[in-house]
C-alpha cells in the first residue's frame, strides 16, 4: 500500500531520517517503534506531506505521492494523527469532527448563499456521523465542550475520532495511546482493530508501549537514528539482539532470560 524508498530528511546537517526504506502492507496494522528521536514522527511528517523530503520517494498503491500537499493526500484516503494532539480550539468537539471531510459544498463562498439546501443536507449527514463517532469513543458527553478545554487523553481520542469521520484507506497514528489510561487504551485498541477488520483501514502506528504494540501490530518496524533497524513479528523483534541494544535495553533481555 505504502512504499517508502531510501527516504532522507535532514535538518541542517542533522539527519533525522537517514535513508529509510519500508513497506506497509494493505490491511495490516504495522507498528513503528524506536527510541526517542529516532525520526519516527519526522518520517510520518514526510509521508503525510507536512515536510518535504530531502531525497527519496514515497508511493501509495504504486502512485508517487512524494511531496504531495496534505489536503490532497487526505482526499486520497491518507490520514494521520499528531503526537501532540492538535485541535481547533475555538470550536466544540462535535464541530471539530464535522470539519474533517474538508472540501464540502459549503466551503465555496458562492454556495454559502446559493447552495444552502445541499449544504444543510451535508451538514446533517456529518452531524449524525460525528455523534456516532463520539458515542463509539464514549465521549458523547463532551460533544458541546470547546475542544481547547479537553484533557490530553480526551484530545487523543478526538484525534482518533477524526480518522473515523471518513472512509480512510491508510491511517498513521502517532502515539495515540500515550498519556491515556488503561481502560481508554483498551477502547482505542478495540476501535483500531474494528476499523481494520470492518472498514478495511490500514494502520501504521508509532507507539512506545510494547504490550499495546504486541496486541495490535503485525509486523513491527524498528527505527533508530533515522534508519530502519529491523522488521518482523513482535516476537522476532523482541528477540533481535540489535533491537534490544538500541531500543529495548538490557532489562528486557534479563527478563527474557529469567
Amino acid at each position: 500500500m505504502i512504499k517508502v524508498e531510501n527516504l532522507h530528511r535532514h535538518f541542517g546537517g542533522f539527519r533525522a531520517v537517514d535513508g529509510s526504506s519500508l513497506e506497509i502492507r494493505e490491511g495490516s496494522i504495522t507498528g513503528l517503534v524506536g527510541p526517542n528521536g529516532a525520526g519516527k514522527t519526522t518520517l510520518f511528517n514526510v509521508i503525510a506531506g507536512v515536510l518535504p523530503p530531502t531525497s527519496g520517494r514515497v508511493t501509495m498503491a504504486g502512485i508517487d505521492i512524494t511531496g504531495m500537499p496534505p489536503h490532497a493526500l487526505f482526499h486520497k484516503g491518507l490520514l494521520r494523527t499528531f503526537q501532540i494532539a492538535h485541535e481547533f480550539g475555538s470550536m466544540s468537539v462535535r464541530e471539530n469532527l464535522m470539519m474533517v471531510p474538508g472540501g464540502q459544498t459549503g466551503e465555496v463562498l458562492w454556495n454559502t448563499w446559493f447552495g444552502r439546501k445541499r449544504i444543510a443536507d451535508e451538514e446533517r449527514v456529518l452531524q449524525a456521523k460525528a455523534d456516532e463517532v463520539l458515542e463509539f469513543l464514549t465521549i458523547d458527553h463532551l460533544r458541546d465542550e470547546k475542544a481547547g478545554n479537553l484533557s490530553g487523553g480526551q484530545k487523543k481520542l478526538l484525534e482518533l475520532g477524526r480518522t473515523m469521520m471518513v472512509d480512510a484507506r491508510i491511517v498513521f497514528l502517532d502515539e495515540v495511546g500515550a498519556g491515556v489510561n488503561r481502560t481508554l487504551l483498551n477502547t482505542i485498541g478495540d476501535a483500531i482493530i474494528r476499523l481494520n477488520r470492518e472498514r478495511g483501514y490500514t494502520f501504521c502506528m508509532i507507539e512506545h508501549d510494547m504490550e499495546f504494540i504486541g496486541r495490535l501490530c503485525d509486523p513491527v518496524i524498528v527505527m533508530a537514528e533515522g534508519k530502519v533497524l529491523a522488521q518482523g513479528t513482535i516476537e522476532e523483534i523482541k528477540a533481535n539482539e540489535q533491537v534490544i541494544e538500541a531500543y529495548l535495553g538490557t532489562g528486557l533481555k534479563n527478563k527474557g532470560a529469567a
Partner: protein
Amino acid sequence: MCANRFWGDRDDEILNAIVVLSNYVLIPAVAYGSQLALGALGVTLIYGILRFSNFAHGDTMAFGAMATILVTWLFQSWGISLGPLPTALLAIPFGIMATAALLLTTDRLVYRFYRQKKAPPVILVIVSMGVMFVMNGLVRFIIGPNDQRFADGERFIISAREFKKMTGLSEGLAFKTTQGITIVTAIIVVMTLFWFLNRTRTGKSMRAFSDNEDLALLSGINPDRVVMVTWIIVAALAATAGALYGLDKSFKPFTYLQLLLPIFAAAVVGGLGNPVGAIAGGFVIAFSEILITYPLKRVLKYLLPENLEPSTLVQLLSTDYKFAVSFTILIIVLLFRPTGLFKGKSV
C-alpha cells in the same frame, strides 16, 4: 451664549453638558470607532488566517474608497440617486468587487510566491510594505493626490439649528447622515461577518485554518480556497471601511496611510486574530483619541460652578498629535498585555 445661565437651572446645565459631549465626542467617536473597527477586522483576519501583519491595508481601503468614488461619479452623471441617502451606498458593492479583484491579483502575483516558499511572517510584512507603496501609487495615479468630494443627499439627520429649536437648549447637536450611515452599515457588516464565521461552513473552514493550519490541511481543507475567501472578505471590509471614512471625512489618499496606525493599534489592543477584539479595539482607540484631543472646557463649564471654571481649554493633547494616542496605547498594550484585551495571538 450663556445668557440663560443662572444658578437655579442645573438641569439645563447638565443637559447642555451632555449635548456638547455627545456632539463633539460621543457621536464622532462612535462613527470613527466603527470605521476603525471595520479596518481592524480586515487586519485581524489577515493576521489570523494568512499570518502576517498587512501594512498595505490602509491603502487597500484607499483603493476601495477610490473605486467607490469613481462608480459614484458615474452614477451621479447618469442621474441615479438614492434621494436623501448618498449615492455612494449604491457604489460600495462595485468598490468591493474592484478591491477583491485587486487583492486576488496581488495575492496571485506576490503573496502566493512567498506562501509556497513558506516564508516567515517578517518577510511577508516587508513584502506587504512594498505592496503598500505600489497600491498607494496606483491610487494617486488614478484619482490624484487631492481631496475628492463625493457625498450627496441630505447632509444632516439632525442639524444643530434644528436641535436647538426643538429642545430650547443653548447647545446644538448635529447628527450627520454619513455618521448615521457609518454606524448602521458597520452594524450590518459586523453581524454578517460573525454569522458567516460562526455559522457557515466557509467561515468555519477559515476559523479552522486560523486555529490550526496543519490540522486544517490534514483534514482535507483546501488552503487555496480559504486564502481566496479571506481576501474577498478582507476586500469587502476594506472597501466598506474606506468608503465610509471617505464619506464621513473626505477622501484624500494620504489620510489612509495615516489611518494604518490607529487601525493596527485597534487590532493589537483587541488581540490580533480575534474579531471581537478588533471591534472593541476600534472603539477604545477612537474614544481615547477624540476624548484626549477634545477641549473638555466646553463640557466642564456647564458642570462646575462659575468660580471653579477652568481657565485653560482642558485639552490633554492638541489634535495635531492625535496619532500619538494610538501609538501610546499600542506601546502600553504591547508591554503589559501582548495578546491584547481579548485573547489573541501574541505579537
